[in-house]
């Protein structure tokens, strides 16, 4: 989307913008949507629901063994303890990276993604390239993301094809001993929780 900002692209974008505006006008006039409700949706995913939520979950799990145990057995409830829940995260599963195993989350059939903890998925996650390749050649995909796994580490891919939504719990980096949860959360990336980064 950020690429190819030529004249043709701008025209196209302008066309889409107009079509969206026209649909909103019709739906509002028919009483099917309330513009103020639309504002709330936009704002929610721009400011409240995004990967900072997941980072807090990860930081808590790294800091609190009892929380981590709950997170790995009852993920939805444990995530709910931090106030995160809802659409596209009704049934969460946390998969833990270990020295033996690296996890990678994908959705080959559409764009399933754990919204309450990660927000809306990035464009690449929904791209045919990621969807087609993540299941078949996860190691090559990881390499493209700069993740080179030590020999002998197994890869587990999770294709989110039904009602469960997956988030990766990355390995806590060795150099973070004694860090506060807040400091830990700051180093956790969205890609780390998808599995396309180590942290």
């Amino acid at each position, binding site marked *: 989307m950020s690429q190819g900002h030529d004249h043709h692209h701008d025209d196209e974008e302008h066309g889409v*913008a107009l079509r969206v505006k026209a649909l909103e006008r*019709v739906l509002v006039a*028919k009483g*099917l*949507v*309330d513009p103020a409700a639309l504002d709330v*949706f936009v704002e929610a995913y721009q400011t409240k629901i995004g990967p900072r939520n997941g980072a807090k979950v990860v930081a808590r799990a790294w800091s609190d063994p009892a929380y981590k145990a709950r997170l790995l057995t009852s993920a939805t409830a444990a995530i709910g303890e931090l106030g995160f829940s809802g659409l596209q*995260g009704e049934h969460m599963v946390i998969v833990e990276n270990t020295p033996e195993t690296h996890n990678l989350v994908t959705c080959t059939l559409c764009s399933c993604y754990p919204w309450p903890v990660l927000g809306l998925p990035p464009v690449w996650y929904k791209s*045919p390239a990621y969807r087609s390749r993540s299941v078949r050649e996860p190691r090559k995909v990881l390499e493209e993301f700069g993740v080179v796994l030590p020999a002998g580490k197994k890869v587990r891919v999770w294709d989110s094809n039904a009602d469960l939504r997956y988030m990766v719990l990355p390995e806590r980096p060795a150099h973070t001993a004694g860090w506060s949860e807040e400091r830990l959360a700051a180093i956790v990336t969205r890609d780390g929780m998808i599995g396309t980064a180590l942290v």
Partner: protein
Amino acid sequence: MDSMHDLGGMHGFGRIVPEPHEPVFHAPWEGRRFALTSAVPFAVPYCDDQFRPAIERMEPSHYLKSSYYEKWYEAVVRLLQERRVISAAELDGSAPPAQSHALAVRADAVLPAIFAGASQARPEAKVARRFSPGDRVRTRATMGAGHNRLPRYARGKVGVVDSVHAPFLVADRNSIDDQTPETLYTVRFEASTLWGTQAPPGDTLSLDLWDSYLEHST
């Protein structure tokens, strides 16, 4: 439905191109479009299992070329037209929009609805639970022309049940308004079972599969 959406394992799509510092929405209209597709199902109820097939019916090369929000937008318009909630004339502006009887979601109901979610689990349902963790299972070899969630790459394949979940509505049936639930299982497959012997030994892939997608295997 073996449409263009079933991309797992296909070749030819090239490199993955992450966008540095990708914003949540690339432009105000993108946010607006997301919000529209999110708000409409409150007024005109449809579930993901009806929304997804509407996307899957897109013309294949258009499917490949369009962004995901665009797919949502087209699916919503298609569903609204198919349910006669909106007419082509209303859409193109040649007829004035007729007031509908549906109830738009109120602004103050949005956040509670987001946080409540829309679970399709039916934990109280009495349903068969034919498989247990450790069981070897084979997935169905063929699916019909209807909506389903068993990717082509995993058909007729043997895996092991990893965990057993609650009864959930089954996508196939729910897409045609049949809400009979089934036990859902997480099934783990060896990568080599799915992709051949070039796959690294020990690598695995997991899918979540309903009871009727599976049979016992030796």
